[in-house]
């Protein structure tokens, strides 16, 4: 383990013609890297672009707020390609806002871990592993990493891709997923969750007050579970999709346009329940909500 760079930031005040932008310093780092390198980056980052590429190198370029410190360490030995790197952007005090933009090019098979406060994180081309954590801002992943784990408090999360294993958790941030997954879970307290486009072997979507919309295709033998307290749950399924659906709204209503079956009154005369089969069966689909409205529609 050695220091990857020591204040490699080249002091370069980027003149701002309007004088409104925060002064920044330039960062540049280029090292040969193993194709499965593990990279960790954290700190006060305005925008972080993570790009998976065929090249076996780690390249970090961009700017950081003036006065901030960009530092890092590697897990390489001598001239061998890096197998691990740890970087962070540190600010001297809270008055330095998260600004600047870092672009990090890594081998496509890399495992990347990034954590920032209020930040915009964009990811493309990565096929390895990805673990992202922000408080606010946004995360957008246009890639299909093998494993994808995202945690956000207030920031919105958008995933366009087909990660095999996917976990997205937000407090208030909205979640949008377009793609497929063998094993996916989406959890939000008050954010809206919209999942669609692809095939799902196992998927769980949970919210407290946030609405849930699903328009994917359940895989035969797979399972889909939807839970909410008061958030509405809307399922839009392909006409040819097969599944056994068990839907319950304890104190709310169920609107079924998928089959002719009408929902019955729930326990103790409250709410509604519905058990119905589409396409001859296949996936096990469970919908549970305390008082949200359940809508079953054709896609």
């Amino acid at each position, binding site marked *: 383990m050695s220091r990857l760079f020591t204040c490699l930031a080249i002091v370069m005040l980027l003149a701002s013609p309007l004088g409104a932008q925060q002064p920044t310093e330039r960062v540049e780092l280029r090292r040969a890297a193993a194709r499965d390198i593990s990279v960790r980056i954290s700190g006060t980052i305005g925008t972080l672009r993570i790009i998976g590429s065929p090249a076996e190198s780690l390249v970090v370029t961009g700017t950081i707020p003036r006065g901030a410190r960009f530092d890092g*360490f590697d897990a390489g030995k001598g001239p061998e390609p890096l197998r691990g790197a740890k970087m962070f952007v540190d600010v001297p005090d809270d008055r330095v806002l998260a600004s600047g933009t870092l672009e990090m090019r890594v081998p496509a098979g890399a495992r990347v871990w990034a954590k920032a406060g209020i930040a915009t994180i964009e990811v493309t081309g990565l096929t390895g592993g990805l673990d992202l954590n922000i*408080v*606010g801002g946004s995360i957008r992943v246009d890639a299909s990493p093998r494993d994808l784990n995202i945690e956000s408090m207030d920031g919105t999360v958008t995933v366009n891709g087909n990660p095999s294993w996917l976990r997205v*958790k937000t*407090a208030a941030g909205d979640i949008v997923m377009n793609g497929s997954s063998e094993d996916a879970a989406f959890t939000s307290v008050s954010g809206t969750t919209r999942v669609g486009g692809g095939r799902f072997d196992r998927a769980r979507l949970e919210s407290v007050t946030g609405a849930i919309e699903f328009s994917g295709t359940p895989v035969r033998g797979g399972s889909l579970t939807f839970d909410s*307290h008061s958030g509405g749950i809307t399922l839009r399924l392909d006409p040819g999709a097969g599944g056994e659906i068990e839907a319950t709204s304890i104190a709310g209503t169920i609107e079924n346009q998928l089959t002719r079956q009408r929902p019955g009154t729930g326990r103790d005369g409250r709410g509604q329940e519905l058990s119905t089969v589409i396409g001859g069966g296949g996936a096990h689909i469970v919908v549970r909500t305390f008082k949200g409205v359940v809508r079953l529609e054709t896609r």
Partner: protein
Amino acid sequence: MNEHLTWEDLNDVVDDVLAPDDAMRARAHLASCAHCSHRRAELEVTLAEVARAAREIPPPAEAWPAVRAEIESRKVVPLAGMPARRASMARFASGRRWTLVAAGIVLVAASSFVTAVVMDRTQPAAPATVAVDPGATITVPVAVVDAERSYLASVQELSAALEAARPHLSAQTIEIVERNLALIDAAITESRAALLRDPGNRVLLEVLAGTYRQKLELLRRAAQLATS
């Protein structure tokens, strides 16, 4: 180096990721500081235990009779009232070490509620007569009462961890967390009241379990935000 090592430095020492100069200084300090040396030893023990811990522990089938006997032995269980979320979360004396075990707390508590749900589904109902108000009682599965106790204990521990992390969190983060905790608490209160009216409602139980899980997860994530 006269000041004690920070929690991050201790972790980096254990992970062996410090730069050579920093590592040399840290080792020199550890050699002369009993406090930091003790914390390092504790951390190493914790990490070793975590590494040894099984990822999954299925209950042995032969354990069920004993569990059933224990349940039968205490049919009357006082149901604790929902603790109101304090405007200022609970005090906590120690440092951010809690965040290391926060995920474990969530797993243990979550699995206990799931176990309660599954047991309730697969076994004959084991009712507990619960005191709701003076002079009024209601019957709910005893496994549910135990599971809720477990959850509440975990919530208290994680709330304490969050309080310890509070000085390291931005005002915006705290506002987001508190706003969403309020939503969760309102949902729990509502679901729980409904469960008392309809104790045998398994769907309701699973919805309530999911909401508890959301609370634990949110507390864990908030506490962990302060660690790096």
